[in-house]
Structures are given as structure tokens and as C-alpha cells.
């Protein structure tokens, strides 16, 4: 999961397509629209069209197709449970159940794959309480560092015999290892707080200021939104 996130994070910052140049707000609105349409659309044709649109977005953003497939295909496993439970002998029901989550997750992957996290979190944090909005930035910033440390800890535990012996001993050792991460997290928060003060922290992490700066690339987002809306109106009542 974290490796996928790290790769998507890299693609979001390194990409040079018009989607990457478009503002975070317009992409957020388009992706939200796609997700909501996918969730509520009754028509199979519309769902297929939305899924094709989401793939077109992802591929035109030059997101690596394997990465996109891996990230967007994650809901498959859990969807299968619901698919079995709701099996009614028709092809329509399972197809709808599959296309809805796949389209939604693909739209989310396109969004995070074309938008660096400070731009993406900036508009979201503005509608959340301050401590939660700041938490979004701080959690994401700490994530990759702690992930690396956790991975190293897990490897060290295995190499030093922490993976052998009774389960209770192994899990207790793992817990003690994670406690060192808690300590590290506490010390890291003290350092970060000091750094924030030194840099003139004003009481709120605002992210970058580009999230609502419109450019020509936003016309592409608007055109796509128009096409999607028109398609939704035309296909909503079809089977």
C-alpha cells in the first residue's frame, strides 16, 4: 500500500501533462463528480462510459498503467464479497457492483496521481476543522519516514530472532518495537514544533497557494466535466 502511495506521490510531483498543470480545485471537483456519478448511476452504459473516461484520464496523465491498475484494482477483493452476496443470476448486477468501485477508485488515483499533496490537501483542509486540516498535512509528511523506520524495525526483528518462538513472545517484541516508534513520533513532534516556530508558523498550515490558481489547463478539466455531464444526462435512463 505504502509503496503504491510513494510511487503515486512521485508521479504527482514529476508529471508534466496538462492535467498536472491544472488547479487542484478543478480536478478535485471533477474527481468528486465522477465518484458521485459512479455511486448513483443506475445505467450500466453510463457506468461503462464513466469507467472508460476514468481510464482515459489516467492514461492521458501518463500514470504508469501497472501502478494505476494496482491502485485502482484494490477494491476488487472486497467487492467480490458483496458480489457473491447479491448474486441474482443476471449479468447486470455484478457488472454494476464491479464498475462502481473501480470507477471511483480510478478517479481517486487520477486525482492523487496528478496533484502534489500540498495542493490536494489545501482545499480539503479549508473545509475541515483547523486541527484536522493540519493533521492531514502532518500525517502525510510523517508517513514515509515512519514507514521506512517501521520496515527497518520489522526486518531487524526478523534478523535478530524476533520472528521465532511462541506467538506471544513474537508479538510482545513487535509491540515493544512499535513503542520505540511512538517515542520517535513524540520526539519528532517536538522537533517539528520547534521548526514551525522558527519558520514563523502563524497558527495554521495553509499548504501552497496554487490550489485555486486557474490556468489554460483548467479548460481541459472543464471540457471533460462538460462531456461527462452531457453523457450522464443522455445515458442516465438507458439500461
Amino acid at each position, binding site marked *: 500500500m505504502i509503496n503504491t502511495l510513494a510511487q503515486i506521490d512521485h508521479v504527482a510531483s514529476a508529471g508534466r501533462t496538462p492535467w498536472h498543470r491544472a488547479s487542484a480545485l478543478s480536478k478535485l471537483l471533477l474527481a468528486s463528480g465522477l465518484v458521485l456519478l459512479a455511486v448513483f448511476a443506475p445505467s450500466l452504459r453510463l457506468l461503462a462510459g464513466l469507467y472508460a473516461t476514468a481510464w482515459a484520464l489516467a492514461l492521458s496523465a501518463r500514470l504508469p498503467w501497472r501502478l494505476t491498475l494496482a491502485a485502482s484494482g484494490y477494491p476488487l*477483493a472486497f467487492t467480490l464479497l458483496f458480489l457473491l452476496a447479491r448474486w441474482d443470476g443476471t449479468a447486470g448486477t455484478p457488472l454494476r457492483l464491479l464498475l462502481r468501485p473501480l*470507477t471511483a477508485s480510478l478517479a481517486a488515483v487520477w486525482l492523487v496521481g496528478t496533484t502534489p499533496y500540498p495542493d490536494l490537501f489545501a482545499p480539503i483542509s479549508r473545509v475541515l476543522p483547523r486541527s*484536522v486540516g493540519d493533521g492531514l498535512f502532518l500525517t502525510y509528511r510523517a508517513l514515509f519516514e515512519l514507514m521506512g523506520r517501521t520496515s527497518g524495525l520489522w526486518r531487524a526483528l526478523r534478523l535478530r530472532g524476533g520472528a521465532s518462538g511462541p506467538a506471544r513472545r513474537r508479538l510482545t517484541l513487535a509491540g515493544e518495537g512499535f*513503542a520505540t516508534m511512538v517515542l520517535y513520533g513524540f520526539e519528532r513532534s517536538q522537533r517539528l514544533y520547534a521548526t514551525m516556530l522558527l519558520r514563523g508558523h502563524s497558527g495554521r498550515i495553509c499548504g501552497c497557494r496554487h490550489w485555486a490558481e486557474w490556468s489554460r489547463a483548467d479548460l481541459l478539466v472543464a471540457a471533460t466535466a462538460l462531456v461527462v455531464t452531457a453523457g450522464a444526462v443522455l445515458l442516465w435512463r438507458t439500461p
Partner: protein
Amino acid sequence: MSHLHIPDGVLPPLLWIPGLLLALLLLGLSALAARGASRQQVAYQGALGALMLAVMAVEVPLGPLEYHLSLLGPVGVLLGPAATFQVVFVANAILALVGHGGLTVVGLNALVLGAGGALARPVYGLIARRAGAPGAMVGATIVAQAVSGALWLLVVGVGLRAGAAGTARLGLFAGIAFPMWIVGIGIESVVAFGVARFLARVRPDLLPGGGPMAEETP
């Protein structure tokens, strides 16, 4: 079991829309409750939220399956109810952005995990004087995981019933999920025991009521 990986579009809107609204309401209330929190505390919350996400990527072999830890109990004890709910919401939002759990289900996810996490510190406080820090952490984790797991089963059960699943299918689902729930509680509890034992020895002030520095810690 500890994280609701339900994707978008499989649960009925009557379930996820109220869940999302309730989660946003609780988020606002938790922000009010924690409005006096220092910036360092917010940074500490961020670090523990990141730790939850990092630990979720660790796979504990469980026979043919793999269990993903959450550290819900320890994080709930260390942060308290309001901050834990915020941390859980943020962690779920980040997971949803990479397809792990749907965007529309972020609210339900936060409620499922947050309800358990919010109970952890009160339970810890009740047990700590008699059983010591490690024992109290185990008790808090059992309660947190049991509540979260029960809510998880409830949400998935309602979701399946909304799809007109037969009783036999629901029974099959419960037959698979229930043992995993119990085993998950056991694994998380033993890990939490290790966390508390280490912290009680090295930095007892980080635990609630753990020492003279407790008031200064986030």
C-alpha cells in the same frame, strides 16, 4: 478486521450518507473539545496517525491469511477520545485517496475505528490502578478492538442485507469474519501489551497518569 475496506458504490446511500454526516459532526465536536491543544500536540497526533498507517502495512502471518495491525488501542490510550477520532479520520481519508476504502465511506470508516479508539483511554483509566500500565493497555485494546470489530460486522451485515443477501450467505460471512475478529483482538492485545510495557519502563510520562511529566506531554 480493524479497517473497513469497503469500496465506493457497494453500500446503500442510506447507510453511508448518515455515516458521513455523523462523522463530520463528531469531527467538529472533537475539534471543539481539543481547541486548547498545542501545536506540538497536533504534530504528535500526526506522527501517531502516520504510525497507524505504517503499521497497517505490516503483515502478520495468520495461517493462510495475513493480519494487518492498527494499533487502535495504544493510539486511543495515548491521545484520548477527541484526538483519536481526528487521527482516525485523517488516516482513513489518506487511505481512501489511494483506493483503500472508498471516499464516500470515509465517514463510516472513521466511526467504526473512532468509536473503539475513543473508548480506549477511559477503559485504561479504569483499569490502570489495579492492573498497571501493560494490563490496562491490554484491557483498553480488547474493548477498542471488540467495539470496532462489532461495528464493522454490523455495517457489513447491514450492507449485505440491503443487497437482499440470503440468510445462508450472511451466516457464511459471519462464520468467516467472527473467528478472524477474535484472533485479531488477541493479536492486537499482545502487541499493545508490548507497547505499554516498553513505554512504562522508558517513558512512563507518555502514558495517561504515568508520571510527573504527564501534564506536559501532548
